[in-house]
């Protein structure tokens, strides 16, 4: 569904992404992990077309995304830190996005209801706490039933109950055959979600393999242990 070939990105002299090659299929749930500043968010923003790659190509459903915008109909994005116009209310933001997308598209209000956003629709975005802003971001990402979901640190800032609701939603959507792309530092949280792991280091992909294989190779039972094992022993091919 997403095919990335020889993707590189430079910000001035700083090389953020180095020759990334990656293929993602529908139904996969991919964890993108790596230390801070290794290029995870830049990679995600490249897929979304928010950052323009220096070289290389990204294909979404066999179509190059460069200079295209329509493909974003099929992507739901939840940013690391949702930023919304300050003086709009939650209801206005949701209404505006619905308006822009066109009412024809089918909608999925499940998260709006689960987070009980309906009761605070007329609150201004400026007055919301970080967690509530994340709830709005999450609801918007799932609202149009996209085929691919890109979630940048989805549970950071959410309270345990909300995090659980979101996790269940992610699992449910994944079971419907949607591609899910998650970055997170909370490895223990990802354990029961992901089917594939990508470890990024210094702007390159260290490895990309199914979770089961990873656990088998490292002879560990949890993702946390497997990753720490690799980082300590440095031996996985």
């Amino acid at each position: 569904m997403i095919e990335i070939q020889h993707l590189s990105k430079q910000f001035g002299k700083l090389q953020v992404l180095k020759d990334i090659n990656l293929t993602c299929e529908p139904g996969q749930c991919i964890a993108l992990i790596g230390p801070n500043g290794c290029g995870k968010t830049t990679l995600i923003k490249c897929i979304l077309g928010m950052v323009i790659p220096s070289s290389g190509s990204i294909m979404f459903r066999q179509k190059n995304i460069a200079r295209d915008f329509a493909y974003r109909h099929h992507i739901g994005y939840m940013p690391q830190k949702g930023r919304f116009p300050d003086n709009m209310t939650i209801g206005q933001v949701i209404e505006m996005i619905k308006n822009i997308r066109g009412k024809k598209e089918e909608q999925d209000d499940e998260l709006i209801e689960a987070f009980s956003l309906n009761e605070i629709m007329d609150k201004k975005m400026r007055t919301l706490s970080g967690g509530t802003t994340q709830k709005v971001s999450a609801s918007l990402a799932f609202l149009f039933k996209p085929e691919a979901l890109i979630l940048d640190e989805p549970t950071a800032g959410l309270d345990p109950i909300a995090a659980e609701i979101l996790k269940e939603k992610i699992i449910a959507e994944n079971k419907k055959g949607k591609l899910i792309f998650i970055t997170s530092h909370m490895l223990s949280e990802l354990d029961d979600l992901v089917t594939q792991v990508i470890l990024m280091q210094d702007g390159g992909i260290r490895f990309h393999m199914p979770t089961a294989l990873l656990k088998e190779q490292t002879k560990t039972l949890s993702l946390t242990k497997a990753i720490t094992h690799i980082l300590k022993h440095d031996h996985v091919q």
Partner: protein
Amino acid sequence: MFNKIQKFILFDILRNRIVIAYTVLLSILTWSVFSLEDESYKGVLTLLNIVLLTTPLICIIFTTIYLYNSAEFIELMLSQPIRRSKIWTGLFLGLFLSLALAFLIGAGIPILLFVSGKIASILLIMGILITAVFVALGFLSAILTRDKAKGIGSSILLWLFFSLLFDGIVLFLLFQLSDYPIEKIMVGISALNPIDLARIFIILQLDVSAMLGYTGAIFKDFFGTGPGTMIGFSLLCIWVILPYLISLRMFVKKDL
């Protein structure tokens, strides 16, 4: 889709307190100028100088600040299936239309009431063109730097340059080179400043260009004729289109 973004931005700006204050300010200035001067052409001259000072300043600074403040909005729109150029055009049209509307309501109504037909229409057209030029320049300085303080600073410098420094430099050159026949070159130099272009247009309409001396006669020879008017008008349009297109090109390629 395009109209929705544009409409949304337009309503957002029209509710903005600064735009309302700008409308009120313009209308107070215009009404008081026309009630103080008994001859309307004198009023037009006074008004000309006030409008050519305030309109560019407010347009360029408001545009720059608004663009920096809508960083969140732009980011949100970018993750939606919308062409980047549509977002930028929507912002431009929203800002331009609301500021032009403010000008038309604030200054336009008294101008239409006090000034005779042809001069009034030239005044209004020039006011709207100057609004467009400085909104476009605001877009340029907002895209050139990520830093808000630097962006607003460069906007203020641009305004200072076009409304004060430029004339100073021209005067300096006139005195230094007064032994040479530079009158024709002056016509060319005035094209480099949109505010001067607008001023010349209106002064030539008022038949007070005799006050400009020999240079005024040359201006009248050039801008007073049909083709000259067309050239002056297109030059002002270029002052809108060029900065805007440069900013659009940069926005389409920008990393956010």
